[in-house]
């Protein structure tokens, strides 16, 4: 099974497998037989890698595994492979915010020229008796807000336009 870890800012991909008698960590540098056995103390283990045993303390956090090894503490961040491999899919967000359905503008929170951050609510629309907050798909500068409060708009109308990003 695949995992991507980040150690000291460097990402490393590895796969764990089991050859019937022991665990094997498959790294770009080769296959490493390994084993981890608890020793009874909280978070205490014996880590065997390539046949060499050493004491470690470790704790598994929500996003990282913390390892105390040889007098040093390390954080091994766990990266979601699907997310990591998706690359910069999010950064190609469009400059244009398009109406998902026809409706009315309830409120406008920004004006042209405003510096905005990704996820910031730009305007609130009402349609089908529901108010929806439209959020910025990326950070940048507002170029245009074509509709004002109370205006109605049709499907796929442009509700906000961001200034194009500079490369």
């Amino acid at each position, binding site marked *: *099974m695949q*995992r991507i870890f980040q150690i000291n800012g460097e990402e490393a991909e590895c796969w764990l497998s089991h050859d019937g008698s022991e*665990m094997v960590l498959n790294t770009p540098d080769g296959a490493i037989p*390994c084993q981890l056995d608890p020793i009874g103390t909280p978070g205490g283990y014996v880590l065997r890698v390539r046949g060499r045993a050493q004491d470690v*303390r*470790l704790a598994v956090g929500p996003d990282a*595994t*913390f*390892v105390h090894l040889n007098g040093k503490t390390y954080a091994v961040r*766990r990266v979601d492979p699907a997310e990591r491999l998706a690359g910069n899919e999010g950064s190609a967000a469009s400059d244009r915010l398009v109406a998902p359905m026809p409706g009315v503008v309830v409120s406008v929170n920004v004006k042209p020229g405003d510096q905005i951050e990704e996820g910031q609510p730009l305007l609130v629309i009402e349609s089908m008796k529901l108010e929806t907050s439209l959020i910025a798909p990326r950070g940048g500068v507002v170029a245009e807000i074509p509709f004002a409060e109370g205006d109605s708009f049709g499907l796929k109308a442009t509700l906000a336009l961001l200034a194009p990003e500079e490369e």
Partner: protein
Amino acid sequence: MTISKLLVANRGEIAARVLRTAKARGLATAVLRHTSEQEGPAHRIADEVVTIEGATPVVAYLDIPQIVEAAQRIGADAVHPGYGFLSENAAFVAALEKVGVTFVGPTSEVIDLMGDKIRARAFVEGRGFPVAPSAIEDDDPATFVERSRAVGYPLLIKPSAGGGGKGMRVVRDDSNLESEIETARREGERYFGDGRLFVECYIERPRHIEVQVMGDGQGNVVHFWERECSIQRRFQKIIEETPSPALTPEQRDEICETAAGIACAVNYRGAGTVEFIYAQDGSFYFLEMNTRLQVEHPVTEMVTGFDLVAEQLRIAAGEGLSAAQADIPQNGHSIELRICAEDATADFRPAIGDILLLDEPRGEAVRVDSGILGGGKVTTDFDPMLSKLIVHADDRAQAIARAREAVQNYVILGVTTNTGYLDAILAHPDFASGDVSTGFLAEQAETLTTPGKDVSDLLMAAAALSDERLVNDVMQIPEMHRKMGGWRN
């Protein structure tokens, strides 16, 4: 003026440390806790925990009326302020005095005087103690150049309105003093819209040395020797030790007696610290006086054998000093490491997280003053310092060795800490030889944060094997297929 119940108006490791001594002295004890604050070691030691409120925890700990009211409500007859928060707040001292609660510390007048850096400096200079030569243009613009020349070389020209190093110029001899003053003025105008300047003596590779003093407010002052605090990052100390490796016995006596003299001059009451800037040539100048217990006081306790908090409480209770100067020894060597939740490789950015596993080092002459508990959370609500690790040994080399062993065995998992960085400092040859200055960490930034031996395969193995879901997934592969391995027909 006996004290029977003490409120500690602080939190974290210092609250715990003060409470321990107070309890040992038989006092009833209480400590504060903000509504959103997690349980810490202090809350387990105190007899009573007083809940305080405020928009943020820090606001609550600075809320004088609320804390004074709390002290009265629980019937505390004394308040120990710890360090930080209200420890050097004259208004707090005055408010306590007004309701008849003893403040464990100096008078509000002394706090006021020492809290004003310019007044303090003038006071000290006026009593004949050494301060760094300087010249302020505003004092008398007409004689600024003359007065600057009198400061001596090298000197540093700074814009009065400045900051961040902009417009600062070092002048090493007289030939270009005037042209540099003009350049600095133009830069000051350009950067800050203000061309006024001041000049001070430029001390190359200075050290920060401070002296612990204690006065009874009756004219008796003793010192508890010096502490060397040159290991600083972002102007904050992270390693302190005593004795200072820089001082000869003569210099030591001189600097300690100077400090005691300054304390005596203000008829100091309680624990205080006089800080000096120490130049490579052995000269030293008064920097400021801290009118409270310092973070790094434990190293002093380790070499003198005195409990400084006990001394503070004695003095506050009117019992006076427990020792004369001659009875205060300086035995062996002590080092303190400040364990902070921060990322030394990312400009010391504070780190947050859950403390998943905490295992403090133990052993002979190893002391941990901790403000955290396993299972707790580290947030950005407070200072990133989690605890202090203090060791003592017969000499400096042994103390360094003991500190390294202890910090290597200090297990804090779940939040990034500076333990590895502290160990790297201790391991540095310049630190071992004592050849450091306040610029040491900045100068050695790269060396100190260079990752050591690559153990990423071990770390990956540990992370993978402790990932229960991953291991479970792997073991779900039918045993036969696992045994066949990567077979291909």
